[in-house]
């Protein structure tokens, strides 16, 4: 009985974490969107949401890659990852952001 109570308490703790009120928090492994040009902010939001599902945003942002062709093939590969949730429209937005922000003009 004590064991069941402890397990129930632990479940309740985890559930409360999931159910607490949502807040919009900027990720510290990403970029402060307010520092980006207005035109990039919507694309950045898609990038930050989709790419952080599986890995830190530091991976692409610190990659040092500035070749648009490379980004095109890499984002296409990421889109094909199981459960990526990256649709064709998301892919276009992510690619626009990465080529604009990480491209040669940076």
């Amino acid at each position: 009985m004590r064991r069941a109570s402890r397990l129930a308490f632990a479940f309740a703790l985890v559930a409360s974490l999931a159910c607490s009120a949502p807040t919009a928090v900027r990720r510290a492994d990403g970029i402060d969107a307010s520092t980006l040009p207005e035109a990039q902010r919507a694309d950045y939001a898609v990038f930050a949401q989709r790419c952080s599902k599986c890995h830190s945003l530091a991976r692409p942002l610190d990659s040092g890659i500035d070749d648009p062709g490379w980004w095109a093939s890499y984002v296409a590969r990421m889109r094909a990852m199981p459960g990526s949730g990256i649709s064709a429209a998301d892919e276009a937005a992510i690619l626009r952001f990465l080529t604009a922000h990480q491209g040669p003009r940076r």
Partner: protein
Amino acid sequence: MTSRRALSLFVVLVVVACVAAIAPSRAHAVERTFSASAQVDYFFVPTEKGANARAIGLDGFTTEASFKLAADLTDHLSASAKLCYGCHGFEADMVYAEYRVRDELAFRVGRFSPSFGAFNLRHDVANHGLSDKPLPYDMGRMLRLRSWNMGVLPSPFPDNGLEVNGTHWFGESAQLDYAAYAVSGFRASTPALDLDFVQSRTPAVYYVDNNSRPTFGGRTALTFKLSDDSDFTIGASSMYGTFDASNSLTYAIFGADLSLRIGQTNVRFEYLARRQDFDTSDPTRFKYALASQHGDFFVKHGAYVEVDRLIAPRVTLLGRVDGLFRVGNVEAGSDLSRRTGVGRATLGSLITIDRSFRIKASAEVYDFSDGDAAGRHVEVGLHVATVWTF
């Protein structure tokens, strides 16, 4: 870990790098990516009084590191190699080539972790927020690991073979993933009572199958985009094969998973079960008398629920409840009983110090249904770890 083996793995990585470097360019230049991650974790077990906690787990410092090189050789062909360093030295976590005909059809051949479960994609220390893995996937971090012989399917589980996989989008809102594979499979020496996971990663018995029959498996998952910042995935996996040299003992592993992402909150659930035959030719090896019917196998169940939530720009809070439940006979002298379980509750945080440098801290409480020699059921573990990605 022998220096000869480390040298062999190093040579493999260098050869892959050289092939990638000199492969002829066709439609475009060969594109290479290098990535790495490292975690140094300190594990303290304050409840283990009067003895080194190593008797029940791997306490103290452990380091896990990985180095991955991927090269796109053509528009369709890529090669990947990943070298890992962990508790048991250097390992080739993946060395494979992938030929992607289109999104719906890709082949990968070589050494890789076959598609099973949802955690598989996040097994790298950089991609999960707690220092250790959920109990169903535990590979040596859990307390009393030797009694339990680790989790249901210790992760990662690289193996040699072939996989066919693909993904298909239905419009902009649903993604179907599927995979089927044939790999060498797990192994054990004869007469076997359980899988011997060490044999999958030791050169002492060579990196070849111990029998002529592959293990077959597959996975399918469906992801729904609920909105711009939320999605939901449901998946199922299975694996079946023989693990002894004479192909007379089988194992079957089944998994189901659900994950929900809303904004910066992730909720994940997975259930795994392994039905495992064992050799009954010598009844004296068992703790209990062998049942006349259905007495030649055990079933090990495992499940976890995990929630992680970004609560401040630099702080992610994580909670996890996980457990194992084993039903079936055990080896004579085992601490476990015929029906035994362990539950664990973990609360942790992931703190971003720098974009590529994070600290993990967590506390976990274990509750074993079987007491130890002193009759104790509850243990506490504390983890503090640093993680780098680059």
